[in-house]
Structure formats: structure tokens, C-alpha cells
């Protein structure tokens, strides 16, 4: 036990000296997850600021392990809120129905897979513009045995979704282009296409909302992850396409607006 603790302490110091965030926690994870022979190699990769999730090949999300590669965005804790609120909406009076859901920009499939696990009667379309991302999503779908509930689709936003759905969930890229180079090195390792939302970050959200009226049932709900300061602009666009909708904001654990909920009557 002392050897393990020593190794953790040394690893911690190495990571901290290199400015790696959560150095202590990452040191523990590395030492406890990786065989001693492989540890030096893992630390070496981490010192190049490759995210730990890419090195280990997975990230836990909403209680399940989601396989990730550099072709997909690493799921964030804030995005668990989308799963939580979607399940809440789905289970409130809609549980006996077969719900149809579109997860747009599914990436690793983190959201789609979790929804499928908790909604056995749902019909889920998980779509993305990136084929490599869809390969990762396919893996996660098989790994959690929910292939009977999720169909993958390749294309731009809602285009590959074959029918009108009850719920649209989307964690689309929402970072303004100019801000990306200022972010952590770890974030720079993630696919730019999964982060870049154009000049104000809302390019894809705007296009999604324009496509949505033709692909959303009545009643229907859209859940979008955004940055707090994007809410006013996004709400204006939403009302443009859904003038009768009720629009609310759900906060993340830092008490910031994070999820926009658009309820079409």
C-alpha cells in the first residue's frame, strides 16, 4: 500500500509541476487504473496535455463508462443535466407512450445511450456529421446493448432524422471561433468541429432551430446545451421559429443557465 501511495505522490508532483489541472485526482486515477509498466508512458502522454479520457479511452458519464477517442468530444458533467431533464420530461406523463427522440450531434453517443438505458420504449435517432464520431457512438451503443433502440444517422443536423420526433436534444458546438485558441490545451486536443459554433457560437443552434419546426411533433420539446450569455440570442431565434413555445432555462451545478428547454404546445 505504501508503494502505491508513494507512486501517487510522485505522479501528483510531476503533473502539478507541468500545470495539469486536478493533478492529485488524475494521479490517483492513473496509478489505480494502469499497470505499473505502462504508467510512465501514460504520464508522458498526459504531460503533452492529451486529456486523460483520451489516454485511458473512456470517461464516466451519468453513471456509465463512455468510450472516447480523439474523434469525439469528451462528455462534460454539465451535459448530464440534459440527460436528467430529458428523463424528467419523458417520465412525466409520457412514460406509457413510445417516445421518439433525436440526439443531434451525438458524438460519442453519451446522451443517446443513457436515454436508451432509462427509456426502454423509446425510439432514438443519434445523428452526427462526423463518420468517425458515429463509429465511436456505434461502439458505445453495442457496449451497452441498446442497439434495438438507437438508430445512427450521418448528415447535417436534423437532415438524417427520418421522421418527426417528440424530443430533440442537442449539445451542439457552441463556442465562438475566436475563443477556442484561448482555452486549455486539453480542449485544443478535442475535435474543433465539435466545439466551433462560429463567430458568436450560435451558428449551428440557429440552423437547428430553423430545421426543427419540420421535425418536431406537437406537443414536442427541444433541449439545448448553451453558454449562459447565449440565452437571450438563442431565445429570440427560438421564438422566431416557435412563436407559441414556452422557453425555460435549467441551471448547472454552478448555478449558471446551461440548458434551454423549448416546449412546443
Amino acid at each position: 500500500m505504501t508503494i502505491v501511495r508513494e507512486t501517487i505522490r510522485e505522479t501528483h508532483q510531476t503533473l502539478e509541476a507541468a500545470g495539469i489541472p486536478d493533478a492529485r485526482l488524475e494521479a490517483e486515477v492513473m496509478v489505480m487504473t494502469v499497470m505499473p509498466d505502462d504508467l510512465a508512458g501514460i504520464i508522458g502522454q498526459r504531460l503533452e496535455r492529451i486529456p486523460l479520457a483520451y489516454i485511458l479511452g473512456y470517461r464516466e458519464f451519468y453513471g456509465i463508462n463512455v468510450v472516447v477517442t480523439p474523434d469525439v468530444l469528451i462528455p462534460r458533467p454539465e451535459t448530464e443535466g440534459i440527460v436528467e431533464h430529458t428523463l424528467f420530461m419523458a417520465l412525466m406523463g409520457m412514460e406509457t407512450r413510445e417516445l421518439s427522440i433525436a440526439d443531434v450531434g451525438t458524438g460519442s453517443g453519451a446522451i443517446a445511450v443513457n436515454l436508451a438505458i432509462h427509456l426502454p420504449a423509446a425510439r432514438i435517432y443519434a445523428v452526427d456529421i462526423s463518420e468517425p464520431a458515429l463509429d465511436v457512438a456505434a461502439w458505445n451503443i453495442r457496449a451497452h446493448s441498446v442497439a434495438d433502440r438507437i438508430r445512427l444517422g450521418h448528415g447535417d443536423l436534423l437532415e438524417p432524422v427520418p421522421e418527426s420526433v417528440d424530443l430533440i436534444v442537442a449539445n451542439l458546438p457552441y463556442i465562438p471561433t475566436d475563443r477556442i485558441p484561448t482555452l486549455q490545451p486539453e480542449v485544443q486536443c478535442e475535435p474543433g468541429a465539435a466545439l466551433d459554433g462560429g463567430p458568436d457560437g450560435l451558428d449551428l443552434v440557429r440552423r437547428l432551430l430553423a430545421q426543427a419546426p419540420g421535425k418536431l411533433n406537437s406537443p414536442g420539446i427541444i433541449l439545448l446545451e448553451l453558454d449562459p450569455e447565449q440565452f437571450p440570442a438563442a431565445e429570440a431565434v427560438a421564438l422566431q421559429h416557435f412563436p407559441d413555445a414556452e422557453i425555460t432555462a435549467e441551471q448547472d451545478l454552478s448555478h449558471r443557465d446551461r440548458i434551454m428547454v423549448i416546449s412546443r404546445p
Partner: protein
Amino acid sequence: MLRDDSSLAEEVRQEILECDQDLRALEGAIVREMIPRDQSDDHSAVLEVRAAAGGTESSLFTSEMFAMYQKYAAYRKWGFETLSVSESELGGYKQASASVTGTGVYGRLKYEAGVHRVQRVPATETHGRLHTSTMSVAVLPQPRDIEVVLNTNDIKVDTFRAAGAGGQHVNTTDSAVRLTHKPTGIVVSIQDQRSQHQNKAKAMKLLQALIYEQQRKTAVEERDEKRRQQIGSGERSERIRTYNFPQDRVTEHRLGVTVWGVAGFMSGTDSLDNLLEQLSAHDLQENLTRLME
């Protein structure tokens, strides 16, 4: 045909003897049933270890004690799930807690509650001097869900990460969760690499145990003082055991008993188990005696 008087008398005498034995056994059973038992004895438990303020020795010993309980849980085939760990920058643990699950866990581990004292020459000691440090153990029964009803409105959930843009902007391993129970002011934090969802679940478990313990304490304090058990009251200030490394002995102060072989004891197997058995038996005896008075 009638049997003669002497063999009949013998039979009757035999029967009286047997009835006497049965009577005594039944009396014993009745008395045992009357002994006030802690209702939480068959519950699972939350175990908490805490270093004394200052000093590397205390925090190192604290982490060794945590390891001992982890091994003991494995030995007893109980579940052992670490809930929180607070490392000391100098090495070892400032504090750590775990959920230990199984039948009768609390009834066993409750005797570990109190202050443990270690006497040894620390690794960092250059002159070979003997140091004495302490650490404390707390054991809380884990309530069955139905016993602690928590109103979600009473609980504030947040994170203690530094302010700043979150979401897609940030890529970190930590998804920390903090729960505040507003009515009691109890705060529980879990900082882990697990998902936020899992960390919330762990935090809720810990919060439930802490609230339950508070409720229990109030109920216990309201009971008749004379009937309170001395062992197992879990008062943190009681110095219950000394681990002397140079003399290779563990002394249990409540029983005045010495166990030889510190390493063997801290391997969390037979040695520790035997001592807990003794403490349990002694506890029962004490209760019996008190009942008779």
C-alpha cells in the same frame, strides 16, 4: 402391571431435573431478550477516520487505519465503498470515509469508535525517538432508505469548482458535487473522477447517514442515563486503544487486554475480529449486569 415405587420415584426425579434445566434455559433466553439492544446493530455503517491536528504521523497512521478497515471488510465479505478522502500534503489522510455494507456491520464496527493512539519511531524521525500520535474513528449506522426521508427541497446541490465558463469550455477529470442540507446545515462534498451522477449518489448516501446519526443522537440523549452502554456509545474523546510498534502489541483499554503482533492486527483479519468478538461479549455482559441491578 404396576412398576415398583423406587423406579417411579427415579423417573419423577429425572423429569424434575430436566424441567429445571429447561426452566433455567428459558430464564436465560428471556433475560437476553430483555437486554436493550441497539436497533441499528444489523445495519450497514458509514466509517470515518480522522487525523489529529498537525503532524505527518497522525495522518499516516490514519491512512493505515483506513486500510486496516478495508481489509477487515474484505475478510468479513462486507462491501467497502470509499466515499471521500482528504489527503494531507505531507502524506497520509486528513480524513476519509467509507460505506461498509452487510448484515450486522454496525453492531461490529461500532466498537472501533473513539481515539486510537499509536506509539512508534516515525519514518521521518532521524534520532530514533518514539512518538505518540492519535487519530479518531467514527462509526455511523447507515439508515435504510425508509428511515431517513429527505425532502429534495431541503437539499441544495452545487459544485465547489472555481467560477468561470464551464460546459464545452473546460475539460477536467473532476466532477465535484456538494450537498447542503438546509434544515441541519450539514454539508457533504464528494470530489471524484466519477460522473456527476455517481458523485451525487455517493453524497446522498453520506448525507443520509449523517442526518440519521444526528436523529439517533437526539434519541439516545433522551434515554435514561443509567441505561446507556459504556462501550459502543462511540464518544470521540474516549481513548480506546494503543498500538505500540516497538513492543509489537495492541492494548485495548476498555477491556485491559493486550494483543500481540501489531502487523497481524492491522492486517484486518483474525486478530481484529477476535478482539471485536471479545468487546461484543463484554458489552452483552455489561448490559446483562445492568439489567439485573
